[in-house]
């Protein structure tokens, strides 16, 4: 307990000792994590958008014109029994016409020339979650196309697929950029700690002569690194929050868009905590790297 207080006090003293380098280390870590955080924000928001779009995905199964009512019932039964179908709604020819008229009152004259009601009846299907991936939807639709009474199966998920592709690229970019920036901030933190070690080399030597073990001497520096990292993480969160609010105020789209909650969201508490932990780890690794030199020096 007493030793723990000693370690933390030493770490704080070291941080105070090299204010400028501490500032640089914190700023670098903050910048690193902020860059990464921007990606993470974009990524998490797009991903949640993609997920919510996917759950909104509707597949329309058009019924062949002239299918007798028993055929329609058979098709309905078939769909109901299908494990891929989570919910389905039947839109009769009459309903379709009424919908069209209600939606496009100006164009309703277009239908006049086409004899009586050219619109087909349809089933509007919400797929079960397991069937919402791009491949699964395609397979499911292809299978249904050959069912009796089916004219056509329609779904539009091109742009959902595009979104998924973007999300995939973002993941890659985040990993790449994250790696490079992490290496940078580990290096900076390591040299910050090295400066402290250098500034205190005489004191370290005295500690050794007094009978301090290597780990007793090193622990304060490890704590110092971790503290620098957490501070960097906190600063980056503040920066991200500020930037996020600015972004939202400028071009935020309040409310809903395409029936989807399109407002961007900031990190959940969990993700924010993870960023702090990431800072801590970066700092810790940085100090471990610098303290390794100390171990190599003769005792």
């Amino acid at each position: 307990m007493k030793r723990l207080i000693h370690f933390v006090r030493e770490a704080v003293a070291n941080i105070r000792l090299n204010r400028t380098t501490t500032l640089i280390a914190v700023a670098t870590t903050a910048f690193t994590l902020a860059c990464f955080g921007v990606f993470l924000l974009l990524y998490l928001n797009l991903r949640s958008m993609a997920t919510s779009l996917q759950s909104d995905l509707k597949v329309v199964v058009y019924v062949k014109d002239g299918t007798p009512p028993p055929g329609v019932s058979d098709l309905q039964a078939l769909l109901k029994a299908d494990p891929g179908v989570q919910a389905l709604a039947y839109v009769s020819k009459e309903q379709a016409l009424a919908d069209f008229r209600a939606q496009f009152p100006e164009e309703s004259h277009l239908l006049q020339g086409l004899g009586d009601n050219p619109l087909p009846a349809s089933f509007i299907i919400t797929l079960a979650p397991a069937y919402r991936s791009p491949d699964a939807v395609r397979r499911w639709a292809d299978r249904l196309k050959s069912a009796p009474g089916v004219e056509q199966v329609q779904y539009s998920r091109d742009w959902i697929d595009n979104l998924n592709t973007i999300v995939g690229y973002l993941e890659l970019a985040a990993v790449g950029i994250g790696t490079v920036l992490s290496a940078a901030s580990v290096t900076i933190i390591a040299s910050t700690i090295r400066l402290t070690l250098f500034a205190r080399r005489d004191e370290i030597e005295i500690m050794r002569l007094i009978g301090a073990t290597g780990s007793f001497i090193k622990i304060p520096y490890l704590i110092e690194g971790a503290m620098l990292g957490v501070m960097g993480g906190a600063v980056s969160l503040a920066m991200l929050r500020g930037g996020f609010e600015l972004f939202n105020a400028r071009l935020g789209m309040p409310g809903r868009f395409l029936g989807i909650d399109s407002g961007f969201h900031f990190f959940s508490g969990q993700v924010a905590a993870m960023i702090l932990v990431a800072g801590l780890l970066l700092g810790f690794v940085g100090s471990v790297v610098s303290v390794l030199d100390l171990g190599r020096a003769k005792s």
Partner: protein
Amino acid sequence: MIQIFHVTKYYERRPALTDVNLQIEKGEFVLLMGPSGAGKTTLLKLLYCATPLDEGQILIQGRNVARLKPSAVPYLRRTMGVVFQDFKLLPKKSVYDNVALPLLVQGLPAFETRRKVMEALKAVGVDHRKESRPAMLSAGEQQRVCIARSIVNSPIILLADEPTGNMDAELAREIVELFKTINARGTTVLVATHNRQVIEQVGRRVVTLDQGKVVSDEGKGL
């Protein structure tokens, strides 16, 4: 307790110690004499493993110092108290914290640390300066803080390099008395000094070094 066999130590190819042999028994009080540059500090440094030796062997409490693993060195040092010629106090810590350091390193409980530190500070007469930084103390006071730190741990071996170098005769006398008391409690004491007064006051074994060689060893068994 301390066995030194044919020890030779070079600094940049110049010998600081040449073929030194010395046996010190448990509970002995030995004074190490010799002109400046004779190798007294070097010999003490070898004993607390602050510098590697080039030839010969040193056994401390039966353990071969040269073969000690680096991780074992701190534990050997914890059994010794060292008064450094240049004090080696931590400049940013108070007198109290400096003296408490050997105990902190070992993780002694707080109340015991307090008691031992105060006891050591009182023994050397600097307990009234315990909140000060070393730089605010006179050289003699700093030296006494260093002595307090060396005895706080009740060491088995006490190595003191010129421990009265910055003190007047009266103060030096008190410090030597302190060493004698510690020695009487069973600690083996080795003191390097130029001070004639100290030698007379102790009246025990005197080993003299000159140019890295033992030139005399008098009063053994006294």
